[in-house]
């Protein structure tokens, strides 16, 4: 692959791919590492027919396999990464709120079935239905249904989590 081709590929897809992986993994550094691996593999290909779906499919498979292989380590990694963040982040009132928002969003995202979650994350990065179908080995016709289900579930779970938090807060205030 030529330098120009590499630049083009990188410029077009690096950002979306890292964001996709960050949302999936919850760890930016890890996401960037995986993205590097994906691009390296892309460089080894003579040509890519559907480059965006190829990149996202490879990234998805890499993460899935690594997660399967070392689920225990991954959990440990997340804990350590959180700890590391805590030591680096300046304390402030907004950090707690942000962390809470992120935690709610992550929990809501985790409540989705794997295929639904991936389809939604890919769609958010601009992949069209054909690309999502190719990357996840779905039929194009089922992507709309998959996305509809994913979005509904995400929003409803997020709302119920939010409502639960509200009730807890209110209960805490009442008790206090």
């Amino acid at each position, binding site marked *: 692959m030529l330098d120009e081709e590499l*630049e083009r590929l990188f410029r077009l897809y690096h950002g979306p791919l890292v964001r996709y992986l960050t949302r999936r993994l919850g760890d930016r550094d890890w996401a960037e590492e995986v993205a590097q691996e994906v691009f*390296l593999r892309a*460089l080894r290909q003579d040509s890519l027919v559907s480059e965006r779906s190829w990149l996202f*499919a490879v990234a998805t498979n890499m993460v*899935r*396999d690594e997660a399967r292989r070392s689920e225990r380590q991954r959990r440990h990694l997340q804990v350590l990464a959180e700890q590391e963040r805590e030591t680096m982040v*300046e304390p402030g009132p907004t950090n707690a709120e942000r962390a809470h928002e992120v935690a709610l969003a992550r929990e809501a995202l985790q409540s989705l079935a794997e295929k639904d979650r991936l389809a939604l994350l890919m769609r958010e990065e*601009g992949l069209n239905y054909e690309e999502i179908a190719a990357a996840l080995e779905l039929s194009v016709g089922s992507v*709309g249904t998959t996305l509809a289900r994913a979005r509904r579930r995400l929003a409803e779970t997020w709302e119920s989590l939010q409502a639960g938090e509200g009730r807890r807060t209110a209960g805490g205030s009442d008790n206090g």
Partner: protein
Amino acid sequence: MADTMNEHLDEGTIHAWLDGALTPDESERVERHAASCAACGEAVAEARGLVAASSRILSSLDDVAAGVIPGTRGRGDQLAALRARREAARPRPWWRRREFAVAASLVLVAGTWSMALRRGVEQSVDGVAPVAGMVRQAADSQPGSRVASAEAGPGAARDARVGITQAPVRAPSPSPSSALALAKREAGDVAGRGAATTTPPANEARRDDIDAGASRAATEMARQQAVAQNQAMTVPAPQQQAPLRLDSLRVRQREADRRELGLAARTDAASRAGFLAAKAVADDAVAECYAIREVDLPEIRVLGVPEAIRLVPAGDTGVTATVAGTPVEGLTLGARFVGRGTDLVELVVRRPVDSTVVRFSRSVVAPAPALTSTERSAGVKVVAAARIVCP
């Protein structure tokens, strides 16, 4: 999909329509049906809300707190690292191959030994030992569980990384036979072997099982190579390596500990630079950057998505907007807050021939309210925008 005008639209079809995934004919049919069927009209409105809400919820995962802001290593750095990795993956000429390098090292060691003996000087081989030691460590530390093709293994690269990280910036005499040079070749060979096969996506992950470790090691190698190149041949001379070796071992131990826990050590210069840059970005608290999600809208595409829109709020009424990153030729942006508060931003995108107005909410939890019929007829569009780290 509703086959006739009398059948209600199913949710999947509505989402496909909103995502622009239907053919023009299908789109027209859905549009007509939604306009004439109250229930489907409501379903479409609900689906719009779900689309926006999903984007908003997911975008809240992107905003990382200060100190660990993502993307702090610039695109250029990432690209440089990738290029370095590609270099490492290229087939190497025979004189740079590992076998030859090892042979050359042995000749050099033998030559040094022989000269020392010949001179009758009571010269220890400490100067050479660290090199040989590191080579041996590289061989010893290869994980047995890896397949044979990754024989140089992460261990070799780890040694190399330590060697580079710990290298003093200035050293009197470069040593081409150093552990650094050898480890570079090792990493090159590992990556080179990885490049020997090409497989479709479905098989990629399986191959990843095989060479993920080696490849990750090569990543670090490549990143370090870039740093090392800047330090042009500043590998310490052999006689200076005794304390270095001790430090290296300590670092290796720490790194091995962290690796055991699944945490890739991030002690390299690039990471440090990344964190410093992150801090700098965090300090720039005024600017906010957003990426507009509806990339299928042609009027949005002109913004150069995924390039970011950079907003600088100015009081309660004003906001200036620019396209972050490379400027888009012929495009000007105007922006203002609309409604009460400063959550709702209206962006006017002007091109030489036309202009468009999009509206989005800065709030993660509160979506932009629905448009009035006047606004809609004026062509204003509500879009979802994700807060991102400014490039």
